[in-house]
């Protein structure tokens, strides 16, 4: 399953790009598993995902938890907590 991954703020900075297309194996079915898989892609990814507890996720621009299923997702985003306003 090919899916677009987007990174924001310091996740984007640490990984070095804002977006990538990935093709995780079929065994990766949840956000939690995808996060582990992404963290193994490179040392930059490992560094970006080191603070996993604070990282938030959205599937197709909807907030989801680590146990959310990724089947059918077009775009999955990882980002730190919001600091707008």
């Amino acid at each position: 399953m090919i899916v677009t991954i987007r990174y924001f703020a310091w996740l984007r900075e640490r990984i070095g790009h804002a977006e990538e297309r990935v093709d995780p194996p079929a065994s990766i079915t949840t956000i939690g598993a995808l996060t582990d898989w992404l963290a193994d892609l490179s040392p930059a990814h490992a560094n970006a995902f080191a603070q996993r507890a604070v990282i938030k996720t959205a599937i197709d621009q909807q907030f989801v938890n680590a146990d959310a299923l990724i089947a059918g997702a077009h775009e999955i985003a990882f980002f730190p907590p919001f600091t707008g306003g």
Partner: protein
Amino acid sequence: MPIIRIQAEDFDVGAELARLEVGAGAVASFVGIVRAEAHGKRLTALTLEHYPGMTERAASAIADQAMMRWPLSDCTIIHRIGRLAPGARIVLAAAASAHRAAALEATAFLIDWLKTDAPFWKHETFTNGETAWVAPRTEDDQARSRWG
């Protein structure tokens, strides 16, 4: 109909509030401004990153919540993105109602929720060359949660 705008450009506070005044008895507003200092260091710029599409949707949902919770005639959210200098306006949240309490409370609600529930990230550049991502503040979560 709430106006929701996510934009790089500055906005005209007077014109935005004048729009809300039509048919209302009370218009409350909040304008956030880039401060000159943070953590005792002088800022060169505050850069706002957002998630195009999701940010607009989140801001709309916050405005809809305000319209549902208070008897508002209308409300406005304008949030800037990109690189902003100290003194620049960042955000306008404003609400109009027949009654002053509704307008004031809804405005506080809009800005509290914008801080915690809309995908924006702030990045600081200091005059000494340092940079930092702004960390979320516990007070902001507390301010959000007082609205239940």
